[in-house]
Each structure stands twice: as C-alpha cells, then as structure tokens.
C-alpha cells in the first residue's frame, strides 16, 4: 500500500484518488449476490408501494362468496362455485331455482316461489360477489315464476383469500408496505439515537463515558422483550409511536459499536498526525472520524432493518403489533399459522415474502460489510 502510494507520488503527482464511497460502490457492484439482493429489495419495495393500487381488490374488501379460496392463476368463479353462489342468492329472495343454464358469460335462471316475485329481487344477484349486471328477462302471468339473467363477474385471486374472504395478494403487498416502513422507521430511530449517544460517550471519554456506558449496561441486562412489552403498554397500539419506541430500544448495540469505533479512531496515528498539524477539533471530527464511523453504521443499519422487521412480525404475531384491518407480514403469518391445516397458502405466501426480504437484506448487509471494510481486500 505504502509502496504504491510513494511510487504514484514519484511518478505522476496528479493521481485521482477514489473516495471511500466510490471504492465501496465499485466493490459492491462486483458482488453478484449483493447486487441481486439490492435489485430484489428495490423490486419488493416498489411492488409493496405501488402494488396495492394496481391489484383490483382492496386489502379490506370482504368477498363473502370467496372465503378461504385457494390461490389460482385462473379466473374465479369456477364452474361448481356458480351453482352454490346462485343458490345462496336465490335463497335470499325466498325463491327456489327451478332450472339454470349458462350462455357464454351470462347465466339464465328460472325461479319459482309460492308468492309473487318482486322485480327488485334482481339486486340479490347483483349483491353477490359472483354476479353482475342482473336483469329480469321475463315473468309468468301470476308472477310466481320468473327468468333472470346476470353476467358472471370474473375475478382473480392469485394468492387466494383469507378466512373472511379478503384477497391475500393485496393484503400481502399492503403488509409489506407496513413491515418495510416500520423496519426503516425504527432502524433510523435506533441509528440516530445510537450514533449520537455512542459518539458523545466515545469522544468525551473519562468519567462521562464511564457513566453513559454503565447506563447502557443496565438497560442491556433487563430482558429485551420486557422493554418492548412495556413500550407497547405505554404507547398503546399506535404503531408509528410504538415503532419509534422500539427503535429507541434497539439503539443500545449501535451506541456500543459507535463508542468503540470513536474511541479507537481517536487513538489512530492519522488523528494524532492531524492534531500535531494543528487541525481543529471540528475538522478532525468531520474529516477523519465521521467518515470512518459511517461504514460500521451503514453495516449495522442493514442488520438492524431485518431485526426490526422480525421484531415487528413477532409482536404482531403475539397480537401486540399492527391491528386489523391494517396488516403486516407478522399478522398474516400469525393467521396462517392458525390455519395451516385447512388453508396453508395463508402461511406460505406471507412467509415467502418475509423470508426472501430478510435474505436479501442479509446478503446486502454482507456485501456492504465487505465493500466498506478497508482491511478486507
């Protein structure tokens, strides 16, 4: 390293150095797993942000005709479901199906009833999730027999539906929005508190450092989950407040890492050299210390985000986190775990989304660690 530097200095004095970040980016780009993960995460974020608007179903809409419908790439309703839905709608009219047939996209049903059939009864067909555009075709003279027609409403449930008949695809995407947002929110909170606290302790040194770190030790020795539950108790179920609070619990590691870094950077030769050259304290701080702190902070942040997402899922799994009808991956997985016997897609889809995101975050974190560590060449 020194040889190269001196050789370059002797040869041409105009060597353009690569900045820490430029160098890191170049090395990250060479790492296929990390780049793929980055791409995947961007894709996931875009899907979760934009997706809920593109999916034709809202994440709260309940389709009573489609409770626990298995996932399928083909349109619903399936042939056998039409009859059931028709039967349900006609029963609500207090009439009986005498006969029905399907012509292309429309069904024609002949009804009989002991009383006169009201024309407005077509609304029962419209109200069903299976039919649309219902019309009265003809009616017998005494009004006890009528022919109605309705078009079949084609719907897609690529991920199936849940226990109350809500589309799982839109719910999974919406859940991703919440989970990712919480991960970032709490992650940033933890990093900000941790960096400020750790850097203060590391730079002040001496007694201040001692006291500040003892406080961290005490907080550390209290069971972590106890803290989180206390926060849930205090902040109620308002999730923004709660996850700011969760972020405020996770700063302990960050504070320790930053303090350790700050302490060791302060003793580095280049900092001593800068001091000897008369560089002011602020100059040393921004020119030498902060850039060297950023590496570990960025790495820790990529580890923190999946940690927060897991924590959020864990809390939601226990019923303490996000509340219905709002949803998160943890809420969906909890519901899936309760229905594994009858509807395993409720577990599988959210679990695949959550786990793949966590994987991508991990690989990206590893890639960043390699890219930002100057000793690892």
């Amino acid at each position, binding site marked *: 390293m020194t040889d190269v530097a001196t050789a370059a200095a002797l040869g041409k004095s105009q060597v353009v150095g690569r900045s820490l970040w430029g160098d890191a980016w170049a090395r990250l780009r060479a790492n296929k797993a990390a780049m793929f993960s980055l791409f995947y995460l961007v894709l996931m974020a875009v899907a979760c942000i934009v997706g809920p608007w593109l999916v034709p179903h809202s994440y709260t809409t309940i389709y009573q005709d489609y409770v626990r419908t298995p996932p399928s790439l083909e349109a619903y309703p399936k042939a056998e479901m039409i009859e059931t839905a028709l039967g349900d709608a006609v029963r609500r009219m207090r009439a009986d199906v005498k006969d029905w047939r399907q012509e292309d996209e429309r069904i024609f049903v002949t009804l009989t009833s002991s009383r006169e059939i009201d024309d407005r009864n077509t609304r029962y067909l419209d109200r069903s999730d299976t039919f649309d555009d219902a019309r009265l075709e003809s009616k017998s003279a005494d009004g006890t027999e009528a022919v109605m027609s309705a078009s079949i409403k084609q719907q897609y449930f690529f991920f199936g539906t849940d226990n109350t008949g809500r589309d799982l695809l839109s719910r999974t995407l919406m859940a991703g929005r919440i989970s990712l947002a919480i991960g970032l929110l709490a992650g940033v909170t933890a990093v900000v508190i941790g960096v400020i606290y750790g850097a203060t302790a590391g730079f002040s040194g001496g007694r201040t450092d001692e006291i500040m770190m003892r406080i961290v030790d005490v907080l550390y*020795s209290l069971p972590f989950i*106890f803290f989180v539950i206390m926060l849930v108790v205090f902040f109620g179920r308002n999730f923004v407040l709660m996850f700011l609070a969760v972020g405020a619990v996770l700063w302990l590691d960050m504070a320790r890492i930053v303090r350790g870094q700050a302490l060791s950077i302060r003793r580095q030769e280049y900092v001593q050299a800068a001091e000897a050259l008369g560089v002011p304290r602020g100059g040393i701080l921004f020119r030498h210390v902060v850039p060297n702190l950023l590496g570990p902070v960025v790495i820790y942040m990529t580890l923190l985000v999946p940690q927060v997402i897991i924590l959020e899922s864990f809390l939601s799994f*226990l019923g303490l986190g996000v509340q219905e009808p709002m949803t998160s991956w943890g809420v969906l997985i909890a519901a899936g775990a309760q229905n*594994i016997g009858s509807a*395993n897609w409720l*577990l599988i889809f959210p679990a695949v989304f959550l786990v793949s995101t966590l994987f991508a975050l991990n690989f990206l974190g590893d890639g960043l660690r390699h890219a930002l560590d100057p000793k690892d060449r």
Partner: protein
Amino acid sequence: MLLYVLRRLLTAIPTMFVIVTVAFFLIRVAPGGPFNQERGLQPAIKANLEAQFGLNDPLWLQYLNYMNNLLHGNFGPSYNLPDFTVGELFANGLPVSIQLGSMALVLALLVGGALGIVAALNQNRAADYAVIAMATAGSTIPTFVIAPLIQLLFGLTWMLLPIGGWGGGAFVNKIGPVITLSLPQIAIVARLMRGSMIEALRAHHIRTARALGLSDWSVIVKHALRGAVLPIVSYAGPAAAALLTGSIIVETIFAIPGVGRYFVDAALNRDYTLVMGTVVVIALFTIAFNLIVDILYAVVDPRVRYD
C-alpha cells in the same frame, strides 16, 4: 479462582438489585392494574382485592414489602392465576422449559459445532458453501415461520410427529419444539465455529503439530478445537440463559406448558408479581451463565487467569 467466583457472586448482588428495582417501578408506572379487566369488577370487590394484596399502600412500602418477601424466597401470589403462587407456577413450568432448552442447546452445540468444523476444513469448497447457505437460512427464517412449517410438514402432511402438546413429556412431543428452538442456534454456532476454526488452523502451533506428523484427527480435535471453541463458549452463555427460560413463540405454537408465555401474558395483564418473578428468574439465569462462561474460559484457555 475461588476468590474470583466469590467476587463475581458478590458483584451480582447489586446488579440483581438494580434490575429488580428498575423492573418493579417500570411495571408500576404502566397504566392499568391487575384487576382492571375489560368487563370490570364491582368497585367494592376491586377495592377489597386491592386491599388484600396491599396494592393501596404507598409504592415505596409495596416495594419494601416485595423486596423483603423476595429475600425470603417468596415471590408472592399471582394476581391473574389466583390458584397458584408465582413460585408454584415456576416450579411447574420451569422444568418443562429447561428440558426443551437444554436439549436444544446440546443439539445446537453438537450439530452446529460439527458443521462449522466441516466447513472450516473444506474452506471455499462445496461443503463449506452448503454450511454457509444453511447457516444463513437458519439465522434468517424466524422461529414463528419454522414452527408452523414443521407442524405442517411433519405433523399434518407426513403424520410423523404430534402437532403440539406436551403429552406428559413424551419424547415425540419434544422433537418439534427442540428442532425449532435449535435451528437458529445451530446456524449461529456453525458460523462462529467456522470462523474461529479457520483462524485456529492458521496458528503456529497447528503448523508445528502438522510438521511433527500428528494425525489430522489429533491436530483438529486436540489442538485446534481447544482454541477455536472460545467464541462458542462466550456465545453459549447468554444463549443458554435465553433457551432455558423458555420461548414464547415455540411454547405458544406447540402448546407447551412452560414458562415462556408468562412474561408476555403477565406484563399485559399487569400481573405484577408474575412479571417480577420472570424478571428475577431470567436475570438469575443470565448472571449464572455469564459466570459459568467466564469460568469455562479459564478452563479452556490457560492464558486466561483470574487472580
């Protein structure tokens, strides 16, 4: 050494004191109380209950009473499970959690350690990559995903294991929970072992041992492993404390009557004594295992001395 242990035990007392005090006041500051149920008790009944448990006394008096009882080994009654004292709840549940936790810990150390050594010996070859992939998967997939998947595959699809329940401690009932508990630990232990083993194999004394013509087995097990096992020892302490005090996820999903659920349930119901009991038990386990780790350190590494 004995002096060191004594000193550590003495320093544990103020630590415990601080933890118990902080926890006591934290849970008391939280809004609500043990008898504020949704349905609501008759005010007179509630007042009587609160008087019976001394909840109307000034907080400092309650604190002194609690500390006094605690020093006499009395954890007090549970407010929400009135048939039991907190001591009884732990006497019933702790053995269950400890059984599962210790089995998971042993499994994690053996399997994780073996995988880590295999990976280190085959660095940058197929076996290594397989272990790394497994370790990444194990530490990334959350327990609350693994547990239902195990139920789905082994319980429902292949009908090999019971879906849940304790079954009086039958072995088949423990397989699912133990595997769920140990998988993330296996992943972490394998990763740690791989790293430290690679480092240990580069050491000078290993090169000397190889040069002297010792067998591979002897070099690895007798000489390299001893140095490589240190990070695992320091990891195993806190991990053991966490495993033995029960896991809420595993115990809830597999319907295991352990102590893992008490903490969350008690905190949510403001069952003050049960919360405090759980804090004390977890803190005791943590302190004990940290001490054991430090003693083991001196046993494994002769350079570490406590004088």
